[in-house]
């Protein structure tokens, strides 16, 4: 099939996509044109697949056969964003949002809702989409989605992730066609620059400028690379884009190839993302088949092809020179810059490297114009940003909001707040390279410069929410363990500095901290920031510095009082049974793995601190709240 033929059939399916995008009353009218009475979209992203969405689809297919339903389309999409509620299933044109589906639930929905004349099964809907008076609220209007603005994620959860036809029907490749037919490379670069798009991978470097440098670099061979080595443990927006809309990445890379004069590209993706890898490979072969990749793309005379390279578990490979070393088949050790990759990148050739989310923002800029994009966001941070919101928050998931949206909106309006009525303590952004935002900054607008100004950073957009039960010293130690483990070992400050700092922090959490430890940590941290070779080492101390700045008293409690205020650091804890509350039920003694609890039935039990291993089993199992942690 040629692209032109595919474009035609895809155009015929535009309404199929519109049904999923347009509000209910119009969608219902549109649905009549599509040939399908209803469409069932089931999330096939990693989150929902992990909670068995595949089995939900299988059950739907089975039920359809049994019930003779042949006019309902099942679509396996990418991520809807609300991962905590997976598997998620949305039925159009109603926009009915079913959550936490099981095969049994799917059967029920098929029988009661999807069947001709069926009705929405309210009790299986996500509770927030059912109004107190029983009316069903379209999911786009619930708080989680209402405050969002989806640019990079525009097609995720909307199109069938493995269908190039649906991708094209949803608008993918229109920007490429426009670029190849109507625009010169300089015009495209000017447009990206005017849009103010900055790299979403962490550093926030202006994308258009990057392309311009690569275009200006001399070289007979150039490359375009995609950084899909999403290393921040807790960020998964890149994965979602690759799983939900892989074609937009291929399209944007091809556009960049046209701009800088490259004919080959690499996507460097984590091996831990098998679904993303599979969909990328499917997308690439589909694009090749219809001439969207390969020789003479869309008859323009421009050649471009893309290869997928798998990472192998190294955080440092998110750093551009390390990533390129890895593509070249070496250890992922960064090298000093200059030369910058625009001059000397993969295999020593000029290379433009952007992160997945950045690539996903390119096509809308081309189609809707730089002015539109630049109108969103803040003065120096344009457009939207995807955050992977996790940790102690109700709506764990992916959230795309205009730059400058406050942390409060993200946590409370979109995220649904902290579960269990706990107090918000801090949010960590930027992963192991970032820092924490304490509660007092909850009204901060989230953009590149604001976050940097308070000692955190945007990073790739991981946002981990922590409550009163989180020990900030322990969190600092957690991140440092991560960076110490992920340090490539090339330069002295990072190789040795992470280890020495970790030793000191470990000592502190074990109650062996000494007053001078704070100064020593600060000294090593400063040294790593000023003297490490790459961004990993330079930013590795950030979580420690920021927790020390904002939560100094917690460090002091660990060092001077030998106490962990949040009750996390095991060595500093003791478990104790309140005699007044103990009913002598013997539950604690029976579950104690260390036989540290003595007492007979109906008498007060006691914990022997010498034997106690501080596992917390007694606390968890006591029905009377008699066990306390101090």
């Amino acid at each position, binding site marked *: 099939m040629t692209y032109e033929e595919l474009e035609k059939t895809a155009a015929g399916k535009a309404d199929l996509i519109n049904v999923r995008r347009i509000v209910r009353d119009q969608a219902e009218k549109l649905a009549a044109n599509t040939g399908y009475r209803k469409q069932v979209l089931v999330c096939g992203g990693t989150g929902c697949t992990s909670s068995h969405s595949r089995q939900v689809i299988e059950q739907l297919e089975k039920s359809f056969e049994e019930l003779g339903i042949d006019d309902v389309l099942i679509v396996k999409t990418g991520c809807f964003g609300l991962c905590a509620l997976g598997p998620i299933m949305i039925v159009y044109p109603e926009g009915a949002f079913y959550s936490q589906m099981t095969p049994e639930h799917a059967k029920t929905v098929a029988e009661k809702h999807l069947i001709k004349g069926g009705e929405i099964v309210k009790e299986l809907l996500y509770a927030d989409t059912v109004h107190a008076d029983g009316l069903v609220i379209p999911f786009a209007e619930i708080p989680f989605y209402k405050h969002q603005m989806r640019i990079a994620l525009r097609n995720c959860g909307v199109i069938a992730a493995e269908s190039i036809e649906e991708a094209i029907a949803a608008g993918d490749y229109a920007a490429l066609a426009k670029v190849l037919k109507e625009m010169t490379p300089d015009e495209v670069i000017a447009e990206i620059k005017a849009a103010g798009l900055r790299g979403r991978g962490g550093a926030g470097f202006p994308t258009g400028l990057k392309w311009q440098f690569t275009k200006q670099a001399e070289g007979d061979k150039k490359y375009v690379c995609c950084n899909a080595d999403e290393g921040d443990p807790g960020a998964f927006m890149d994965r979602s884009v690759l799983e939900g809309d892989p074609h937009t990445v291929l399209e944007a890379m091809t556009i960049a190839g046209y701009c800088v004069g490259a004919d080959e590209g690499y996507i460097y993706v984590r091996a831990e*993302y098998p679904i993303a890898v599979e969909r990328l490979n499917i997308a690439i072969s589909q694009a090749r088949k219809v001439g969207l990749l390969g020789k003479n793309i869309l008859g323009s005379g421009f050649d471009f092809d893309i290869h997928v390279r798998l990472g192998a*578990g*190294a955080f440092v490979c998110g750093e551009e020179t390390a990533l390129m070393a890895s*593509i070249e*088949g070496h250890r992922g050790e960064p090298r000093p810059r200059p030369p910058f990759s625009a001059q000397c990148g993969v295999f020593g050739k000029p290379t433009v490297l952007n992160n997945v989310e950045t690539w996903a923002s390119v096509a809308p800029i081309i189609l809707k114009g730089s002015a539109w994009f630049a109108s969103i966001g803040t003065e120096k941070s344009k457009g939207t940003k995807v955050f992977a919101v*996790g*940790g102690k928050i109700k709506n*764990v998931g992916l959230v795309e909001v205009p730059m400058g949206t406050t942390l409060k909106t993200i946590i409370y309006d979109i995220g649904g707040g902290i579960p269990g009525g706990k107090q918000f303590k801090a949010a960590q952004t930027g992963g192991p390279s970032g820092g924490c935002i304490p509660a007092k900054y909850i009204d901060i607008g989230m953009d590149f410069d604001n976050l940097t100004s308070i000692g955190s950073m945007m990073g790739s957009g991981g946002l981990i929410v922590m409550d009163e039960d989180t020990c900030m010293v322990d969190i600092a130690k957690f991140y440092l363990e991560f960076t110490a483990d992920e340090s490539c070992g090339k330069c002295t400050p990072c190789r040795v500095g992470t280890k020495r700092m970790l030793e000191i922090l470990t000592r502190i959490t074990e109650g062996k901290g000494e007053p001078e430890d704070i100064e020593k940590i600060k000294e090593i941290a400063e040294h790593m920031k000023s003297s490490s070779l790459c961004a990993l080492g330079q930013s590795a101390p950030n979580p420690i510095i920021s927790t020390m700045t904002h939560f100094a008293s917690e460090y002091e409690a660990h060092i001077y009082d030998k106490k962990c205020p949040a009750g996390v650091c095991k060595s500093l804890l003791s478990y104790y049974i309140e005699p007044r509350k103990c009913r002598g039920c013997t539950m604690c003694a029976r579950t104690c793995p260390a036989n540290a609890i003595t007492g007979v039935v109906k008498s007060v039990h006691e914990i022997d601190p010498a034997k106690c291993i501080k596992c917390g089993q007694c606390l968890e199992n006591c029905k009377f709240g008699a066990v306390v942690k101090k």
Partner: protein
Amino acid sequence: MTQDIFEGTEEQAAALKSCIESHRGEEGALMPVLHEAQNIYGYLPAEVQTVIAEGLGVPLAEVYGVATFYSHFSLKPKGKHKVSVCLGTACYVKGSDKILEAVEKELGVSCGECTPDRKFSIESCRCVGACGLAPVMIVDEEVYGKLTPKDVPDVLDKYMGD
């Protein structure tokens, strides 16, 4: 040092050979070949790395340097069932360290080790992207989410039988 005895089949050797052939002359072939070799053998023993070094014309020390750099590559055989506990931030904040402890306790070996009967091996990983289900563990390909330490024995029980 105890050496694991390498036992490779002729089919595996042939698969490795054709993998190397298909990448010969390709720039940066080492990583893809190591990935495929690990898929074929389950791990990267010295014998396999030597064949790769010779086949791609890369010094063995470099092959070994790359294989030991990336945590995804293993130089030791894995258990029949691979148990992996996510220690990414989202999971850690929700107590995945306690899940790992429970797994270690249940199987009687530490993270990074293989049970003596080679049935299970335990490892930790950094985020599989299923943060919505935190804390998670993965057995083979199957993801188990929203776990508590108490769930661990039941999950592992499913794999004990075979």
